[in-house]
């Protein structure tokens, strides 16, 4: 009985704090979503921990900007990470900015890496490149459900071909 009262008081106290603006329940969800996305980039992209992709991405994950002919879903995402990390084994994304609203997250990133493997038909040059990138993510049930992204690949090609 006492425990139920406590829970109820907690709830009332929380409701008051939400009403007064002390707590923003949205912000808590946003923080969760932001943490999820930050961990994805840190673990999967920066550390190459592909086994964690299934933990971050929903089973029916859709990538609206995957490369032509690339498979969709988790396997396609893994293939994309693999392609970049094979060409640039020390590849690292820096999160320049991250915004969250409702179930959506937008990220601005700068990638960098050393060209040590084949990239889009260009043999290794040993050059250091930087890559501007933006991504929009929709999150459902604590996992990435949909993704849209643009990366400045033409600029990377310019850098590799020595015109950058």
């Amino acid at each position, binding site marked *: 009985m006492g425990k139920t009262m406590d829970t109820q008081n907690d709830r009332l106290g929380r409701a008051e704090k939400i009403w007064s603006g002390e707590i923003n329940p949205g912000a808590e969800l946003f923080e969760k979503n932001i943490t999820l996305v930050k961990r994805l980039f840190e673990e999967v992209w920066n550390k190459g921990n592909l086994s964690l992709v299934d933990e971050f991405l929903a089973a029916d994950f859709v990538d609206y*900007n995957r490369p032509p002919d690339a498979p969709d879903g988790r396997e396609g995402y893994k293939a994309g990470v693999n392609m970049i990390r094979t060409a640039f084994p020390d590849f690292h994304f820096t999160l320049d900015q991250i915004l969250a*609203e409702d179930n959506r997250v*937008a990220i601005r990133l700068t990638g960098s890496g050393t060209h040590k493997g084949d990239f889009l038909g260009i043999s290794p040059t040993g050059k250091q490149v930087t890559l501007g990138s933006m991504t*929009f993510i929709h999150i459902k049930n604590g996992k990435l459900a949909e993704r*849209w992204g643009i990366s400045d690949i033409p600029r990377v090609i310019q850098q590799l071909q020595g015109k950058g």
Partner: protein
Amino acid sequence: MSDIAKTLYRTFVEEVINKANYDLIPEIFSEDYLDHNAPPGAPVGGFEAIRAVPIMFRGAFPDVHFVIEDMVNQGDWVATRVTGNATHIGRPFMGIEPTGLRVSWSSMGFFRVANGRIVEHHGQPDLGALHTQLTRKIEPGSIEHNRFIVSRYVYATNIGELDLFDEYVDPNFVDHNALPGQRPGVDGLKDAYRMFSSAFSDLWYTFEDLIAEGDKVVGRGVIEGKHTGAFMGIPATNKVIRWTGTRIFRIVNGKVTEGWIDLDMFGMMMQLGAIPIPGQS
């Protein structure tokens, strides 16, 4: 704050980009707006510089239309995702001369708002996708190819490269709206063009629509030029004149074989002061 950032961006897309309503720029942007990803060669600083980017873009893609797909707002910032749809019927873009091709691409941006104005922007347009689409192979004899031929022919007139007519226009071209005494064929077409270009400097025809079906292509557009030489007996006024023109072309085997043109000569003559404007004395 959230509504302000989204409303400003929405106005920018729907009014400035989609309708060329450049006068609204001071109501949307701060004068010291900073674009971290301004296109190469774009002017920097002030409202004129802000105007220059959509003007440059509309120059290449006069019918550009953006659709807002998503906006994520937090604090002073809003992240935006749009799809652009446009036809490459204007000036060269990324070094590619007008192709007449319809393109669709994504663009993303992060905007910061302060004191009710956009003050800062990071942008990431999908220029790779745009470049791929603008350099795609065009099937000879296709409707796309007909649009390509017309776009390149009209571009040749715009830059005054009359020699290029021979590449896009059939030597026996039939002008259904020939001037009195105009020579037949492509030579007469060149004469007609010269009559206009000798009277109007920087003469430029911009398509605002280009529609193809079967062996015909229809274009609706605006002509602009500075009246610096005598035209039909009217001495130079040094005024910049804008008038509309609708054109139909027939294309056979990759060459323009017939043409119809309907120019707003009445509007043009009114601007030149050669005929009175009705209701004004």
